[in-house]
Structure formats: C-alpha cells, structure tokens
C-alpha cells in the first residue's frame, strides 16, 4: 500500500474540461432563433419545427392503438407522470416545453408525434422517450391527439358579466 499526495490540479483540469464541453453545447443550442415571435416562448417554434423533419415513413405510420378505448386514459396517466413538468398539467406549455394544444401539434400525424417522442429534441431540452415501450408511446400519442384547443383568451375577456 502506498500513500500518495492528492492532486488538486487534476481535479481542476477535469472540472474545466467538463464546464468547457457544457458551454460549447449550450452556445450551439442557442444559435438559431428564427420565427419564435409567433409563440409564447422562443424555444417553442424550434421544437414544433422538428415535427417537419420526421421522415415520410414515420409520418405515414398509423397509431395501432387508435381503436383501443383505454389508450387515451392510459396516455393521460403517462402524460401526468412524464410530461407535465415541462408541458404543464393542461398541456398548454411552460417555459420549459411548448404547448401541445397548438396548430403544429393538431396538424401533425400520429406517426410524426410518435417519431418526435421517440427521438426527442435533445438540443432544445426535450429528452428522448424511447425508454418508454412502443405501446406506451402510442398511448401518449392517443392522449395528445385527444387534446382540444384552449379557449381563446379574447373570448374569455369579452364574456358578458352578470
């Protein structure tokens, strides 16, 4: 057994390397800011834009659970467990994740949503969800497709008061 002196310089070198790698990644993730004014948060448009990148084969996939009466209920449970932290309890978005009650989501096919769930948008903060088995991801897609548009804020404001 040999007693050796600690090497603080090694620890600092390691810390510097890790922080440098993190900074490079963060800067790269913040470069692109096109057309974000349309949505509540600047990241939203960038995440929605990923839906358009789904391959044709993925877009064309049909939800094998679309006729399963329990799929929406199970998807809602999974949504509560895994998604509300970023997308909000009502799926109307937070600073961390975009609203799922938005046109790009309504217009997306189930296959495109499944593809996005599977692959995530890692640079924009959305993790990959392939760790959920495929049927659970389809259950989530069923739930997301069942969401209805939020009430327009203007209509709420102009409602007659009694």
């Amino acid at each position, binding site marked *: 057994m040999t*007693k050796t002196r600690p090497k603080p310089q*090694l620890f600092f070198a390691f810390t510097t390397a890790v922080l440098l790698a*993190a900074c490079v*990644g*963060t800067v790269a993730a913040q470069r692109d800011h096109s057309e974000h004014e349309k949505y509540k948060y600047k990241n939203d448009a960038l995440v929605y834009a990923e839906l358009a990148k789904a391959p044709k084969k993925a877009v064309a996939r049909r939800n094998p659970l679309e006729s399963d009466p329990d799929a929406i209920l199970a998807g809602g449970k999974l949504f509560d467990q895994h998604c509300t932290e970023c997308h909000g309890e009502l799926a109307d978005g937070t600073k961390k994740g975009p609203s799922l009650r938005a046109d790009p989501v309504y217009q997306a096919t189930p296959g495109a949503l499944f593809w996005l769930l599977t692959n995530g948008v890692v640079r924009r903060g959305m*993790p*990959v969800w392939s*760790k959920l088995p495929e*049927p*659970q991801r389809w259950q989530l897609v069923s739930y997301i497709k069942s969401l209805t548009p939020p009430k327009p804020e203007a209509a709420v404001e102009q409602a007659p008061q009694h």
Partner: protein
Amino acid sequence: MNSIVFAFSCPRPRPHDAPRRVTRPRLLQLLFAALLALAGFSPPAAGQESPYIVTYDHYLEEPGSLEVEYFSTFGTQRGGNDFHAFWAEFEYGATAWWTTELYFDGQTTFNDSTIFTGFRWENRFRLLQREHFINPVLYIEYEQTSGADKILKEVEGHDVEADYADPNAIARQEHDHEIETKLLLSKTFNGWNIAENTIATKNVTGGNPWEFGYAIGASRPLALKASAHRCSFCPENFIAGIEMYGGLGDRYSFGLHETSHYLAPVVAWNLPSDWTLRLSPGFGLNDNSHRFLLRWGVSREFSGFGSAISRLFGGRQ
C-alpha cells in the same frame, strides 16, 4: 467488543485551543442535508428507471430533475470479513444531453469498522441527437477514493476478491485519484434494452497503466402497455433483466484472465408514489470473484430541481 467506528457521527474530539475547522465528513454531511432540503422543495416525478446497478444504458436524467439514490452492496469475503458497502448518489439532468452525478461512498467491514471511502463526480454526454441503431454516450468520471472502497460499481484491470481482504486501517491508507472513461452503447427495441459499456481507467497516482473493464445488460418491462389506472402492482411497473460485468486486464495484460467476473439478475419496481426500488443478487463467475454480492437500492426523482435552485437565487420561473 464492538469496535465499529462511525466516521460520520463521531468526529475526534478537538483540544479547546485548537482553531475550529469544518472537517471533511462534516462538510459532506452539510452538503448532503442541503441537497435533500432543496429536493424537498421540488415536486416528485415518476420515472421509468432502469433496473441496472452497474451497467448504464443511454438514457440520461430529464433536464432540471434531480434523482437522489441510495445503494447498498453486501459482499462475502474469503480471507477476510464480509462487508456492507453503500453509496449515495445525486444525479442531475443539466441538459437533455448532459447528466452530472455526485457519489459519496462508504463501507462497513464486519468486525472491523465503518468508514467514508471517497467521492466520485461523474458526467455523461449524449453524443448523437436522435435515436439510432446503437446510441453512444460518453462517460467521464473523476474519483478520489481510498483503497478501502468496496462499492464494486465497476470491475477494472485485475481486480480480484483478495484485493478487498485487508483490514480498513491498512486499506484506507491508499489514496486513489482516477479518471474513468466509458463508452456506453445501448439500444431499445420491442421493449428490450440491450446495453454494453466499455471501461478505461487511469489511476494517476503512481505509474499505474490504463485498466479496462466491461459491463453488459439486458432488461425488459413485464408489460409494454400501461394500464389505464394508477396502480402499484401493475406489471408495467416492474422491469427485470440481467447484467454481467468484469475486468479486462490492463494495457500490458489484456483479457478476461486474472480478474473477476459477475453475473447478476436485476429487478426494478417503479412505484406510482415516485419511488424506485432495485434488487440484484450477484454471483461470482470464477475463483477471483466474490462468491456472492447482494445489492439493493432506493431512489426518488424530483422534477423541477433546477427551477427551485433558480428561484432561490432570484431567477425567473
């Protein structure tokens, strides 16, 4: 006579005229308490945690979430006393592609003592943005441990059972400063996860050569579809699998010989109350290995930990 020494709870008395200084165990206690207190401000989050204890798959912690974990390993020891090694783990998702983790290790050797054996700082970086046929993750860890560390989180080089037989008073005099790198490869298909880790470690104290190791694992949830209602005993809450790990020698003597290898079934139970329990009995596959290792662990994930820290310092929600 029970000679167990509790290094955490029984600091050596100091003379009245000695300057007051915070000892390392005290600092670690404070850090541990602070992290737990901050985690208490964050809502719990249900995870789909992997059952592996040694092997890593390619899934990182969700951004902003903190997972607090405790693990134990009971090991039989020929030529020495059996032991119970334990570690606390704080795993934080810094981004969707970077997870950072802090470990504090300790162990009790029966009929000997209980000691703190060191810390590790681990980082995992996802290398590719999307899912591919095989998904690589780069793992980089700095560890500062004593020779008495027995958590057996990995097997490297020519690690054998006899290395762990020394009494704590002797073993703790050895200080290791290691850089450990791993290439984690993993794939999930049809509910099965297959993961392979290749380990390369350099102990920078002394002229030690690069040492190598491996870990492989396979696991699958007991059911692939989620049930429509919240339940504790639903089969989808259980993930079962198996992992195998061992050494691969060093740069001068590479291979499966003169090192130890283990095979361990693993099971995880992801409770709807946001806790995960893991259990893994491990069996040595050759005479260089501990005959039996029983590992268990408990963890809880807290989402929004990063936001809680941000709020603490006046940041926006």
